[in-house]
């Protein structure tokens, strides 16, 4: 379990994240949702040590993240940021191999190679393993990065808006993969999402942030209802039940 305790981050005097307390449960997909500027990405960056918190602490399985060695930390928690500009010419296999960097420092053992193969196989990338990243489509590239994280073999996988710039088909594909990571491999996934319907359909728990504070935190079904959404987004959002999915119809509210 990841425990976030009284975590705050200030830019100047403005608090971007203020006294946040959240528990991230093992073996579940937890989605961070909320309006723009709510502090979702900042919170995720602090949990993953990319940013230093100003106050508060983060515990990963009861260990304070600030006291962990960076190499040990990178074997337990991995983070993928919005895949910004990538003009590095690496093949998929090379990228996925770097997932083993915390374990082997670049000198890949037979065991590492086996895990790299397995990860690419899992993401269905075997056939294009020698293609360069800058020649792939957005969806393929995102899959390659997730394969790298699988090879990194951490219990916790944090993803910052992994669906950015992906079309519907690839978004669904990525979410299904994350679901499999949790259900089949027992990983714990934390994900920042913009589209609440993806959060509704695929996550187990939802943490809603607004102006740097947690406004809602609970199982998905407790959050995806009109009253809670009103509090988060200041919008009247009707919910429609379709098969087992609850869909938020926010387009006309």
């Amino acid at each position: 379990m990841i425990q976030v305790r009284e975590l705050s981050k200030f830019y100047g005097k403005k608090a971007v994240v203020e006294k946040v307390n959240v528990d991230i449960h093992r073996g579940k997909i937890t989605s961070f949702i909320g309006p723009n500027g709510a502090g979702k990405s900042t919170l995720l960056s602090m949990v993953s040590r990319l940013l230093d918190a100003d106050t508060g602490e983060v515990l990963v399985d009861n260990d304070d993240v600030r006291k962990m060695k960076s190499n040990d930390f990178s074997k337990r928690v991995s983070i993928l940021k919005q895949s910004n500009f990538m003009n590095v010419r690496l093949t998929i296999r090379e990228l996925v191999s770097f997932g083993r960097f915390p374990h082997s420092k670049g000198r890949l053992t037979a065991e590492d190679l086996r895990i790299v193969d397995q990860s690419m196989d899992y993401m269905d990338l075997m056939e294009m393993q020698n293609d360069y990243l800058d020649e792939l489509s957005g969806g393929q590239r995102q899959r390659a990065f997730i394969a790298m994280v699988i090879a990194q073999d951490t219990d916790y996988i944090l993803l910052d808006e992994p669906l950015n710039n992906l079309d519907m088909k690839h978004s669904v594909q990525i979410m299904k993969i994350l679901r499999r990571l949790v259900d089949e491999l027992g990983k714990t996934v934390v994900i920042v999402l913009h589209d609440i319907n993806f959060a509704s359909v695929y996550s187990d728990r939802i943490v809603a942030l607004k102006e740097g504070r947690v406004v809602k935190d609970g199982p998905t079904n407790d959050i995806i209802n009109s009253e809670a959404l009103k509090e988060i987004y200041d919008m009247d959002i009707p919910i429609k039940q379709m098969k087992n999915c609850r869909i938020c119809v926010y387009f006309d509210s």
Partner: protein
Amino acid sequence: MKIRYLVIITISLSFLSLFVGVSRITPMNLLDFKSEETEIFLISRLPRLVAILLAGAGMSIAGLIMQQLSRNKFVSPTTAGTLDATRLGILVSMLLFTNASTIEKMIVAFVFALAGTLLFMQILDRIKFKDAIFIPLVGLMFGNILSSIATFFAYKANVIQNMSAWLQGDFSMIMKGRYELLYISIPVLIITYLYANRFTVAGMGEDFSKNLGLAYKRVVNIGLILVALITTTVVLTVGMIPFLGLIIPNIVSIFKGDHLQKTLPHTALLGAIFLLICDILGRVLIYPYEISISLMVGVIGSGIFLYLLFRRKAYA
């Protein structure tokens, strides 16, 4: 581009380079240890060859490290002010200590090269508009500012002519006793190879590096120190060689990608080959005179650079 072929080409060109020049030397002459030819061979030709190989490999690797760490394909010692900072450093060492020894010059120039490169990286951090072409332009402006400062003080101190000696890269002055500083490149190249994986990871960005548990800042600093060392030794012994650090890594990247552990040997060899070709042409074209290496590299290099620019546009 198989490494095997590059090695064969390097060896054959090296052989050619040893036996091209004003005095005719044939391999047969060398059998006589005391002949004048053997002496020329040992004092001039061999040092020249070693200097070309080391400078070519060194400058290409320096460019490769800079491109990787700045995540910009057009950043190199030429386009980031490193060369100009080094030159300013040499000038300062000459003005402050009139009879500066090579090592003293080297230390001062190294400090300036490192400071200049660090400053450029700081500027890079603060630029919001990270366009691939814009950043090297900023670097060129930065370099020109340093260069004008150097020119001003050189003018004041009446050492303009002296200074232009290292403005122009030139191998004809390389002789036994004047190039040994370049051997510093050898350990630097070895360290670079040992750090290849870390540089590759660092080239994916700070967040990406931290995710993999890499001490990003330390790796970047080590990289910049290596770049400053190579640049200083090359400028002090040979002079400025423009474009080399820019075009060689780019050509290798197109064919072999950016995985440094795989591309380092190719980059080093191709840099040496390119410089060898330029040097041999420079010696042959207006025989018995010589075209300086910086002019040869400048002409051929800028042509290739333009090609790379246009190619990149067609790509994106």
